[in-house]
Every structure is written in C-alpha cells, then in structure tokens.
C-alpha cells in the first residue's frame, strides 16, 4: 500500500467537473429565476441566489471534508450511519417542522434540514455494505428480503412524512439489486409496467395490443424457438395485454380522485388549466417558448413573472428551457446523462464490491431524481415534487447530493488501494 499523496490524489476530475458544471448552472439559473430589479447582485445574501452561493460554498467544504476522511470509514460505519438516519427519520415525524405539506424538516439555525435527503445516502451505504458482504447472494430469497428491507424501511418512514417524491426515489436502488444479480425479468417488468400503463391510457388499446403482438412475433424470430420459450412469450403477451385493458379500469375505479386528476393532467386529458394542470401547463409554456436558442439569460418572461410555480426548486428546469432554449436544456440533459454513464463506468472499475455497489447506488438515486424531475416539468410524469440534483435551490438537498457523490469519489480515488 502506498501512502496517501494529498486529498486530490487519483481524484476523478471528470466527475468533479460535471458536478461543478451542474452546481454553477444551477446557481446562475436560480439567479435568473428569482431575479429582481431591486436586487441585481448575484451575491445578495438576502435573495435565494445569494443563499444558494452560501450553500454551494458549504457544500464544497463538505466535499473537501469527505475527501479527507479515510474511505474505509464509510464502509465500516455504514450500518451505523444508516441506523442514525433511520432514527432521525422517525424522530422528525414527531418533532419536525412542516414545510409545504411535508413533515420531514428539522430546523437548524434558521435553515431547514431534511433528513430524508441524507437517508438516501445512508441507505445506499447500507445496501452497498450488505451486498458486498461475503455469502450474500441476491438471488437467494432471504438476502433479497434483507436488501429490500434496507431499501423500503426508510422509504416507508418517508412516505409517512407525506413526502411521496422522496419515498419513490428509494425504488431507484432496484438498479443496484439488478446489477448485483436480481433477475432481469423482474427488473424489466418493474420498468416496463409503468411505461405500458401510461401508454395504455394514451394510445388506443387496440393499437397498443397490435404493437405488442407485432413485437412478440418479432421476438419469436430471434429467440430459440423451443416450446418453453414460445409458451413464456405467449404468456407474457397475454399478461401485458390483460394489463393494458385493466389499467383504464383501475384508474377510473380504484384510484382516489386527486390521483386520477394528476394522471389525467399528465395525459393531457384534463383541460382544467387553472387547477390541477396549472403547474404542468405553465411549465410547458415556459420551456416551449424558449424555442431553439432561448430568450437569453434573464430574459425569460414566464419564469421571471412567476407564472411557473416553484421555479427555483422543483421547476428550475423551466428557467433553463425558457432562457437557454433547446440548446441549453438539451445540453443539461446531456450533462446529466454523461454524469450517470461516468458513474457507472467508474463503479465498474472498482475492485471493492462495496465501492462498486455504492457507485451504482449514487448513479441510481441521481438518475431517478433527474428522471422524475425533468419528466414532470416536461409533462411526461405526474407532478411529484423532488429537486433536480445539484441544480435546484436548497441547502439540504445540495449538501446531501454532494456528500452522496463525494463519498463515491473518495472511494474511487482509493480504488487501487482497497481490495
């Protein structure tokens, strides 16, 4: 083992670069989103952009702190950290503050801190620790159960805080389970069913069924035509078609009204643009009006004049879409996709199983946030209020994501030293 050569030794600068690019983009767009003629300075600490700068500086200090800590600390103390934050999640239900319908906030010195944000990081640590343990095989029912418990216990507590968005994010860790060996079919089904469900509501069911039939027949050409395969394929086909036809019924007869509303809004079948559909409609108007080149920095009208709600937090992507146009918004999507790919590639090069699964966990969590957030602003997913990682306004989420990412960067820099 070699001695350490400073904290920046063997650091993955691509990841750090992508991180800094996103953080700075976020800060500038928060400035644009809440820009106010009477507070022109981007360093004005009475405004959100001034505060965000403070959050960023604090986040960088946190990042440096993590780079100093011995990487072994995180694997060794992962269960402890996990336990600590699960406890915090429970405590916050009883003693926390309520902010916009969610009870999961601690008030610390004027700032609201949301343990749920950190619980994700803790869960990723615990899951990675568990999966990297000797004798653990996810294909074994007992281990799958334990892994699921690690994921769903905090998710359930978060759900009790009425923070549906954060709770859903824990499901992202199924990607880690998949990488660890979870059956591909389970994984596929988990991804395919929601997609099929939405399609069933949008596309005429007959056409969809026809498309599925075509797909099934095409697959028949490529698989080994053994009886078992053909029967399986046939069964899958029948199940999916049945699913398609049951979705409509479920939505109309089983879901609660507000849930149904959100789904109808999403599918563009709700014309009540004042009520449930207001956010999504205004969000699309803001992004759509950006056209190719955008309206220019600080030139956005929809976001600047508050037509888009939550524009510095959950709907920050609107500001980018409106002011930077397709060019800027597309670049943003590309930046995130690059980050996720880099994370996966970096995870794959780990010799330590813990570090690898942790890397996948980071990628999964960030990816889910990204997908749900941008899917929501683009009207592709229901309105679920979760922040866009590194970009949305807010200290709690920025710090949590920074810690999440830099723990991995720290592990990664030690990849040659840890086995």
């Amino acid at each position: 083992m070699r001695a350490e050569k400073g904290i920046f030794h063997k650091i993955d600068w691509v990841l750090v670069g992508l991180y800094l690019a996103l953080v700075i983009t976020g800060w500038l767009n928060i400035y644009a989103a809440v820009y106010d003629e009477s507070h022109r300075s981007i360093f004005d600490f009475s405004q959100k952009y001034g505060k965000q700068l403070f959050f960023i500086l604090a986040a960088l200090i946190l990042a440096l702190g993590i780079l100093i800590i011995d990487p072994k600390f995180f694997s060794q103390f992962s269960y402890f950290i996990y336990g600590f934050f699960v406890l915090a999640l429970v405590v916050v239900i009883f003693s926390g503050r309520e902010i916009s319908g969610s009870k999961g906030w601690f008030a610390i010195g004027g700032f609201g801190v949301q343990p749920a944000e950190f619980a994700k990081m803790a869960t990723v640590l615990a899951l990675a620790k568990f999966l990297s343990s000797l004798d653990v095989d996810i294909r074994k029912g007992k281990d799958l159960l334990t892994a699921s418990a690690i994921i769903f216990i905090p998710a359930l507590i978060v759900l009790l805080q009425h923070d549906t968005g954060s709770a859903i994010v824990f499901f992202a860790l199924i990607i880690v389970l998949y990488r660890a060996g979870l059956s591909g079919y389970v994984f596929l089904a988990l991804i395919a069913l929601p997609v099929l469900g939405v399609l069933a509501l949008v596309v005429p069911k007959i056409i969809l069924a026809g498309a599925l039939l075509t797909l099934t027949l095409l697959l028949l050409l490529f698989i080994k035509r053994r009886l078992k395969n053909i029967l399986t394929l046939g069964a899958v086909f029948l199940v999916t078609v049945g699913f398609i036809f049951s979705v409509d019924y479920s939505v109309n007869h089983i879901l609660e009204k507000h849930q149904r509303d959100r789904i109808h809004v999403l599918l563009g079948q709700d014309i009540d643009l004042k009520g449930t559909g207001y956010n999504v409609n205004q969000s699309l108007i803001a992004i759509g009006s950006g056209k190719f080149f955008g309206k220019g920095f600080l030139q956005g009208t929809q976001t600047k004049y508050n037509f888009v709600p939550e524009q510095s937090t959950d709907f920050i992507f609107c500001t980018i879409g409106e002011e930077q146009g397709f060019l800027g918004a597309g670049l943003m999507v590309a930046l995130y996709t690059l980050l996720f790919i880099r994370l996966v590639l970096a995870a794959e090069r780990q010799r330590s199983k813990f570090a690898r699964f942790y890397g996948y966990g980071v990628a999964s969590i960030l990816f889910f946030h990204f997908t749900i957030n941008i899917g929501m602003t683009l009207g592709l997913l229901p309105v679920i209020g979760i922040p866009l990682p590194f970009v949305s306004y807010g200290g709690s989420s920025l710090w949590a994501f920074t810690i999440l990412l830099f723990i991995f960067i720290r592990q990664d820099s030690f990849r040659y030293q840890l086995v």
Partner: protein
Amino acid sequence: MERLLANRKYIIIGFFILVGALFLVRLFYVQILVDKYILSANNNVLRYMTQYPARGLVFDRFGKLLVYNEAAYDLMVVPRQVKNPDTSALCQLIGITTVEFRKRLERAKQYSPYRPSIFEAQITRENYGYLEEKLFLFPGFFVQLRTLRKYSFPVAAHTLGYIGEANPEVIAKNPYYKSGDYIGISGIEKSYEEILRGKKGMKIRVFDVLNRDKGNFREGKYDTASVAGTDLHSSMDADLQIYGELLMTNKKGSIVAIEPSTGEILCIVSSPSYDPNLLVGNIRKKNYALLLSDTIYNPLFNRALMASYPPGSTFKLVDALIGQQEGVITPDTRYGCPGGFSIGNGKMVACHPHPSPLDLAGAIQISCNTYFCRVFKSIIDNKSYVNTRTAFENWRKNILSFGFGKKLGIDIPNELNGNIPTANFYDKYHGKNRWRSMTIISLGIGQGEIGITPIQLANLAAIISNKGWFYTPHIIRAIGKNDSLNQAFMTKRHVNVDPSYFDVVIEGMSLVVTAGTARGAKIDSIVVCGKTGTAQNPHGKNHSVFIAFAPRENPKIAISVVCENAGFGSTWAAPIASLMIEKYLKRKVTRKDVEERMINGNLINGKLPESESGKRDISQD
C-alpha cells in the same frame, strides 16, 4: 457469473441513455415543433394595449366647436386571468348583478379567453376612482382610457350622426376594427369615419402572474403610436342651425340652407329631432331604442334627405325655365286664366281669382295654375319631338339636370333619390301610347307622381340664384386645416337651361315676395326671391313649402322650408324661410312678432292657431 453480471452495465447505461434521449425528443417537440407554447407564453405576460387616437373634432363655419371628445374609462377583462374574484365586490363597484357578471364573463370568454374585451364600457370618472384603488384585487381586470363623443349643441343630430361599437359584421369585413372599437354609424361620423378615426396604436406591456404591470415589452421597441384623427371644418352655421330647430319646434318638416356660390350647406334641420348627446356612451342603446320606438314623431327619420314631397307650385319655376329653353314660351307669353285649366271630361285644375292674362313673371308672382299647365302642355306637345314619349323623355332629362330624381351625392349618408317618373312608368300605368300631356298635366304644377327631397328643393333655389349651375351640396367644407377645401365637391354642375332664361324667373320670384303669394317673407333692406308651394298630401293636411334665395344680387343663401300638414306655403314655410334668411344675413332677427308666432306654432297635433285656420278656401299659391 460475475462477468455476466458486469455486462448488465450496458443495459443500465442503455437505460440511462434511453431516458436522456426521450427527454431530448420531448424537448424538441415542445420547443421546436409546436408553436402553441410560445403563443401561450406571450398571452401570459404580454398585454396588447390598443392606443386609441383622439377622434377628429368638428367645427362650424365660424370655427365654433361642434363635436369633441371627453375622457371615459372602459373596464376590460381577460377571462383567462380572472381568478376566483370576489364577484359581489366587483359587481357592487360597477353596479351589476352577479348573474349579469357571469353572463358578461361568459361572453368575454367566447370572444377570446386571453384577449382583453370590454366588461363595462365608459365608467364615470368618480366610479373609476374607486375602481382603480381596488382593481389589484381582481386579476384579469384592468381599465383602459377611452374617449366619449360629445356634441356642443343639442342640434343637428341627423347631420352629425353618432358613433357606436363596431358590430360583428363590420369586424368580419374590415380588419381595422376589433371588438369594442368605435365606428361612425350615421351622419358625418359615418361618411367621414376614416378621416375622423385616425390610426390606432399598440402598446405592449408585460404583466406578471398577479396582473401587475411590469413595464414596456423590450423597452417599447414593438410599440406603435396612435395617430390622432383629422379635424373637419363644417360649413354649418351653428347659430343658424340652432335657430332653425327652434323655429321648427313642434312642427314636422325640414329646413335646408345652402350657400349658392359654393354648395356649402349652412344648415339642415329635420324636425322632430333629438339631442345628439342622447346617443353617446352607455346610454346610447337605451335611448336609441326609445327614439326608434317613437313611431309618431319618428325623430330618427332625416326628413331633409329622405322625405320626398311633391314640390307643388315651387316646380312652376322649373316649368318656366324649361319652357323657355324649349322655345315654347318667352317672358312675354300671356295666357288667360278662366279660373282653371280644363283637362277634359268636365274636369279642371282650379286656379284662384287673379288678374288675367298674365306674362311669365306675373304668372310666377301669382302662381297661376292655368298658366303653367299650359306651359307644361306646350313642352310635352312640342312638335319638334316625334311623339309625346320622346318629348317627355327630353323633359325628364332636363329635369334630372337640376339634380332631381337622383341623389345629389352629398356627404351625409342615407340621402334618397326622390322621384321623377319615367316614360316606362306611364307606359305601365296607362298603357303604351295611351298617355298624353293632359294625362300627366299635374306634373306641371308639381303634383302627382313627382317626389323631391328638401335638399333638392334648396338646391333648386341655389341653381336659380346662380343662373344655371350648382356645386353638389356638402356639409364639410374643409378637411384638416380650415383652408384645405373638400376636394370632393369642387366640380361645377350645369343644368340644361341657358343662363339668359333665369332673369325673368328671378324677377317673378322677387315679385312673389314683394307683391305675390309670399309677402310674409319680405325683409326690409334685403331683396328676397322666393316661391311658395303646397305639397299635396293624400294622408292629411297639405304640406307648406317655400324656397327662396337672398339677396337677389350676389346671393348668399338659398333655402327650402317644408312644414308638414301646415297648409299653404305662405302661412308657415315662407315666414320661417325669411326669418332664417334674416338670421343668416343680419345675424339677428328684428321681426320678433313673426318669430314668436312661428316658434309657438304647434303643427304636430294638427292644431293651428285660431287666426290661421280655415281663413282662405282657394289655393293662393
């Protein structure tokens, strides 16, 4: 096994890329392919505020202001921005019921959910004060400054006309007009609409989600300024108009006065009339309905341009002129009058007792029916023409040159043709070749199928005073500056009668006033030339008609007066005409007794003052 699992990274990466690509496609669709979002965005924040130009003013011939503008405020609504307003509070502020509120909002929504339309028009200044303070409570509502048309004097309603909101048909036809815009609907407001209205401008302002004004869009780069309407200088003499309407109090009829040398109309009175200020702003609809429903007085009917009367004896002047031109009489032609003109079958056109025989001037002076029946017979039976029909057609052509039987083409809308019957008409009525001069002899004394409007009659007086020509009468003498004359009325129109034939007619008209049928029209120190007439009215008492011009040399005013159901021309029409002439030429009237009698005369209820009724039984004109 572990290697196999490692390959799953490709599936995971593929999944990430798939989602990213899906977002890019969606972004491309939302930002590039569809335009509805940018339109919605603009509708969200940009408020297109029409800048209404001040409508042009109208002055009278002496520079008195006739029509001007006054500030008013329209409450506008953008239905899409209306958010659960405290309906009752807003209703209270503008004084409507909540039912009416919803109705109006629905109507505005139907016009456009995101374009402003008028919610309540022309709010008074005081109410505006209250409203403006509270307006921020009602997103979607804002106030727009407009102007109200105001008329300085309660006269000349038919001539000046009124403005109102452009109706959907106009909007559909003419892209200039938008919902809520004003347009001239009658009178010169209509005929000079494009000059008076100016050009609308557009100001684009930015509003935030709470309907707060955030200033000009791009520093006003796309704003256009409005161009104020052009002023009009009317030839109307406001004093004369007021005086004329005063004289016509409680009378049905009209007065039209023209300056012969220019064709400029000095006044057009149509009685009964109404105050033009009744048809202004939000009281217009109610008042218009009231005026329209008044079928007894018919105040909206512009008699001066639209009523067509048989001209009666005033038409003898035309006989005298055409008779000379056709060579069938000379000033010295004398006809005896045996108390009437026999038309066969024992029937005759009666005449009143007078010295006989008379020459042409004398026949005009006394208004001898026999004389002019013979003149007309001579014109129609003229051997120079192959038959009655040809002679009649020729006569008709000459008559039309006086501006009869067709619109004169003045600059006030709704003028009517009047009627000069055609040969075809008589062919149909009597049968081809089955009518002769005697069949249509009543035309010679201005009765029968002939119809002439008061403005055509006034124009006849102008033609005679000018000895054979006229300018098309018009009420707007100059557009913009006082000296930039209305180019549409600069063409002299000549009648088919040689100027030399006018002297004897003018002499006759002079005698009418000094020693003839209209001695009541005499004014000291002004030589008035006139002619009385009685228009036959099958529905009731005859109409009193008088035309005149003055002074005889260098005439300044030509006038026609029609008093419906007033009997002879000499009793009402002639004195009213003389008062008008005196008023115009001397600017004040000295014959107070005549004036008072004329003003107080009430002919509308069919009651005549005691001294005037049933005194004479034979037509004296």
